C-alpha cells in the first residue's frame, strides 16, 4: 500500500490556497470600509465618545461590529454594538448608553442573574450574522451552543479545567462543521480516528485543512499550547490534547490573584470584555467566587454607576515586543496573535498609554 504521493501533496496545496484566499476575503470584508472618524484620545468624556462613535458608524451590522472592534476607547470597544443591546433590553436602554467600561456594565447585577445561555447565544448571533461567505460554516459551529461552556468556565474555580471543556466541545462541533475540503493524512484508518476521538479537525479561524490524528505530532500534552503558559491540564478532558487554546494571564490591579482566559474562545473584543467582566466582577462588587476571596461589602448600585462614570478600569495587553498596549486598536485576529497577557489597569495608571 503505497501512499499517494502527488495526490496528497496536490490536495494539500489546493486546500491551502482555498483557505488562504478565503482568509484574505474575510479580512477584506472586515476592514475594507474606508476611514471612519475615530476618537484616539480615549480620555474624553464618556458620553461624547459614545455619541461620536455611534454616529460615525454606518448602519450595516457587519461594518458596525467590525469597526467597533477597532475603535479606540477607554473601555473595551465593541460594547456598544446593537446586538449586545438587544441582549440586555431587560436591563434598561438608558444604562447601556453610558460608557461601557470594563469591568462593569450597568447591568452588572443583572448579568449575573441572566442565564448564560441568553448572553452567549446573543453574542454568537450577532457575530454570525455579520460574517458571510466562507465563514458560514464557522457560524454554524459557533451557534451550536458550544460556547455555553465559556461562561461556566469563567465562573468556576476550575478555569483551566472548564476552559478545556469548552475547547473540546468546540472541537467536536468544529469537526461536524468541517469544510468538505478537509484532507485526511492517513488513508484507511483516519475516518475511524477522526470520528472516534474528539481531536476534531483543524478548522480554526486560521485555515488549516489537515485532520488531526491521535498522538501526532508526538508531543507530550504538557508541552502543547506553549503560546499561552499552561497546558498541563489537557489530560483532564478525555485525555485528548486541546489544540489551539491560547491561554493568557489576566491580572487586575488590586485583585489578590490572576486569572487565565483562552483567547481563542472569543472572536470579538466584546466577547472578551463580557467574559472578563464576569470573571473579575467579584473583585469590584465584593462577591466571593468559589476561590475563597475575602468578602467585602457588596457595593450599592449607585456606587457601581459611579465606578462607571469614573472610567475606573482600562484593559491593556502586553504584546510580543513587550510593550503595553491598549486593547482595541487592532483587528481581533491581529490582537490575539500578538497578545501575551492582559492587564486591567486603573484608569489613572493607563494615562500613559494614550498615543
Amino acid at each position, binding site marked *: 500500500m503505497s501512499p499517494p504521493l502527488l495526490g496528497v501533496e496536490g490536495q494539500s496545496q489546493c486546500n491551502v490556497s482555498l483557505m488562504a484566499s478565503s482568509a484574505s476575503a474575510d479580512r477584506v470584508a472586515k476592514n475594507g470600509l474606508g476611514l471612519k472618524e475615530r476618537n484616539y484620545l480615549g480620555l474624553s468624556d464618556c458620553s461624547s465618545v459614545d455619541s461620536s462613535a455611534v454616529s460615525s458608524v454606518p448602519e450595516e451590522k457587519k461594518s458596525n461590529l467590525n469597526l467597533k472592534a477597532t475603535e479606540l476607547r477607554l473601555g473595551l470597544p465593541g460594547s456598544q454594538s446593537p446586538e449586545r443591546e438587544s441582549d440586555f433590553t431587560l436591563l434598561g436602554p438608558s444604562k447601556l448608553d453610558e460608557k461601557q467600561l470594563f469591568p462593569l456594565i450597568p447591568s452588572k447585577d443583572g448579568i449575573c442573574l441572566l442565564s448564560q445561555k441568553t448572553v452567549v447565544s446573543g453574542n454568537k448571533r450577532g457575530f454570525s450574522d455579520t460574517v458571510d461567505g466562507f465563514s458560514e460554516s464557522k457560524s454554524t459551529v459557533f451557534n451550536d451552543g458550544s460556547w455555553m461552556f465559556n461562561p461556566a468556565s469563567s465562573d468556576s474555580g476550575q478555569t483551566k479545567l472548564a476552559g478545556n471543556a469548552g475547547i473540546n466541545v468546540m472541537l467536536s462541533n468544529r469537526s461536524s462543521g468541517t469544510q468538505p475540503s478537509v484532507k485526511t493524512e492517513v488513508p484507511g484508518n483516519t475516518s475511524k480516528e477522526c470520528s472516534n476521538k474528539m481531536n476534531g479537525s483543524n478548522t480554526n479561524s486560521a485555515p488549516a485543512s489537515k485532520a488531526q490524528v491521535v498522538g501526532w505530532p508526538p508531543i507530550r500534552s504538557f508541552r502543547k499550547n506553549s503560546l499561552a503558559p499552561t497546558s498541563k491540564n489537557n489530560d483532564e478532558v478525555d485525555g485528548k490534547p486541546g489544540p489551539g487554546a491560547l491561554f493568557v494571564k489576566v491580572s487586575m490591579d488590586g485583585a489578590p490573584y490572576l486569572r487565565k482566559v483562552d483567547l481563542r474562545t472569543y472572536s470579538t473584543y466584546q466577547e472578551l470584555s463580557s467574559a472578563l467582566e464576569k470573571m473579575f466582577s467579584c473583585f469590584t462588587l465584593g462577591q466571593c467566587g468559589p476561590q475563597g476571596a475575602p468578602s467585602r461589602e457588596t457595593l450599592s448600585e449607585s456606587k457601581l454607576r459611579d465606578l462607571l462614570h469614573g472610567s475606573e478600569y482600562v484593559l491593556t495587553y502586553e504584546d510580543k515586543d513587550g510593550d503595553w498596549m491598549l486593547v482595541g486598536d487592532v483587528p481581533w485576529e491581529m490582537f490575539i496573535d500578538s497578545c*501575551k497577557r492582559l492587564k486591567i489597569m486603573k484608569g489613572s495608571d493607563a494615562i500613559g498609554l494614550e498615543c
Partner: protein
Amino acid sequence: MDPDPKKSKFLPSNLLNSNGSSHPQSLFPDEVLEKVLSLIDSHKDRNSVSLVCKDWYNAERWTRSNLFIGNCYSVSPEIVARRFPKIKSVRLKGKPRFSDFDMLPRDWGANVHSWLVMFAKAYPFLEELRLKRMTVSDQSMELLAKSFPHFRALSLSSCDGFTDDGLKAITTHCGNLTELDIRDSVTVDVGGGWLSCFPEDFSSLEILNFSSLNSEVSFEALEKLVSRCRSLRVLKVNESITLDQLQRLLVHAPLLTELGTGSFLQELTPRQYEDIESAFGNSKNLQVLSGLWDATSFYLPVLYGACSGLTFLNLSDAVLQSGELAKLLAHCPNLRRLWVIDTVEDKGLEAVGSSCPLLEELRVFPVDPYDLDHRHGVSEMGFLAVSRGCRKLRYVLYFCRRMTNAAVVTIVQNCPDFTHFRLCIMNPRQPDYLTNETMDEAFGAVAKTCTKLRRLSVSGLLTDTTFEYIGKYAKNLETLSVAFAGSSDRGMQCVLEGCPKLRKLEIRDCPFGNAALLSGLKKYEMMRSLWMSSCNLTMKGCRLLAREMPRLNVEVIKDKGSDEIQADKVYVYRSVAGPRQDAPPVVLTL
C-alpha cells in the same frame, strides 16, 4: 550465604585441584568473587556476569543492590524477590512510550502497588525508588512512606494516579528524604499542601523538583524548607512561584547546581530587579537552568550572571524569539544541552550554532503542533546552522515543517557522532520540499554515516528503501520509532533482520501486516517490546504469534467501533511472568 567449607581464601590452588575438581571456579573463593562483583554497577554487565556459571550467578545475585526493570510486566515481583535478596534501590518502567501521546486507555495498567507490597516484605532496607510511566496511587505512596525507615529518594517521571494526600504521606513520614523529584507529571491538580508537611526539624533534602505540579504551594513553608536544608543542590519550583519569591529562595541556597525557576510574569520594581539580578549573579554553581515560564526580553537579562557555568539550559517552557535567545546564549559558552521552542526560528538556531561550540544535545519543540497559526517554526536551515557550529552534536530532537534530503546528508557529515537522531517532520508523509522526492536518502545517510546511532525516529515520506538502509547500516540501533512510513511488509522485515541490537520498536500508521509481524518471531524475545498501532495487523496474525511464542505477551487493544478482524493496537513483549492479570477489559491478551 554460607561459604563452601571446601573453599577458603587461604587455600592454595593446588590443594583444591587435588580434590579432583578442575573447575576454574574453585580458584576463586566466593568472598573474593562477591567483593569484586559488588563493585560492578552496570546492570548490563551484571546480567552478563550472572550467565557465566551457577556460582557466579549466585555471587551476583547476592551482591546486586540496584535493580533495574525496563518493563514492569516482563517479570513478577515474586520472581524478583526470590532472586535478589539485597536490593536497596529500584528503577521501574511501566507503560509503553506511546502512552505519553494519549494512545493508551486510562486504566491500562503499570500500577506499582503490587511491587511495593513485595518490596515492603522483601526489602525493608529499600532506599530509593525511581518510577517511569507508572501509576502510583495515594495508597501506594502511604505504603511506601510507612514501610521503609531508610527511604531516601523518590523519583516519579511521567507518573500518574496520585494526589496531594499521597505526597503528604511521603513528606510527613520519610524523615531521611534526600530526593523528591516529580517530573512530567501526568496527574492534574495535585494540591500543594504536601510541601507544608515536612517536619519542622527536617533538613536532609538535597533534590526537590515539583515543577510539573500545577498547584500553588505555601511559599512560607518552601522558604523555611530551603533555608533549613543546607545540602540542597537541586531546586525546581513550579509556575506559581514568582520572581521575587525566587529571589528569596536563591538567597537561602547559593550552592544550587540545578535551578528550575517559576514564572517570570511579574512586574518588578527596580529594586526587586536588582535583587533578583544579584541573586542570580551569586549563583555561581548553576549548571542546569529550567522553568522560565513567561520569560520576556525585559527580564531575561537577570539570568545572565548565572549563565557562565551552565551546561544544560531548558527553555522548553519559555516562548522566546530569536533575538532574545541570541542574547541569552551569548552568556552561555559552556552549554552542552539546550532545549528550545521553535519560536526562535532558524535565526535563533544560527545563534546556537555560533554561540555554543560545545553543544552535544539539542531539542526543538513546536509551539504550535497543530499548525493552527501557520507559525514558521524551524526548517532545515536552522538544523544546518547548528550542525555547522556544533560539531559535537550527538543528540537531537527536532520538530519541523520542512526538510530536505540534502540538508540531512550535510548535517550528518558535519556531525557524524550522532547517537540519538529524532527528526519529526510534522506533516505525515511529507516529501523533500525542494525536490519532492521521498526522504529515504536522508535517513539512509543517517544510518550510513552515524555508526554510533542508538536511537532513531523517522518521519516524512518514506518507502521501504529507508528500512533497507537502516537494516543494512544501523548496526548499533537499539530504539526505532516509525510513523506513516514504508510501502510494504518488506520494510519492517529489513529492520527485524538487519539490526542485531534492536530492543524497542514502535510503529504506527504503517502498511505493515501479519507477514511483517511474524517475520520477527525469533527476534522479539531478544527485544524489550514491540508496539504496532494502526497498521495492517489482524487478530489472526496476533493469535498466531502468541501461539508460536509462549514466552511473549501479545496484547491487543481494540479501538471503539473497529471490527472483529483488525488488531488496532498491538503490544508485544517478552515476559517470564506469563500473561498479566491486571489488564483492563479493553486489552486482550492472546
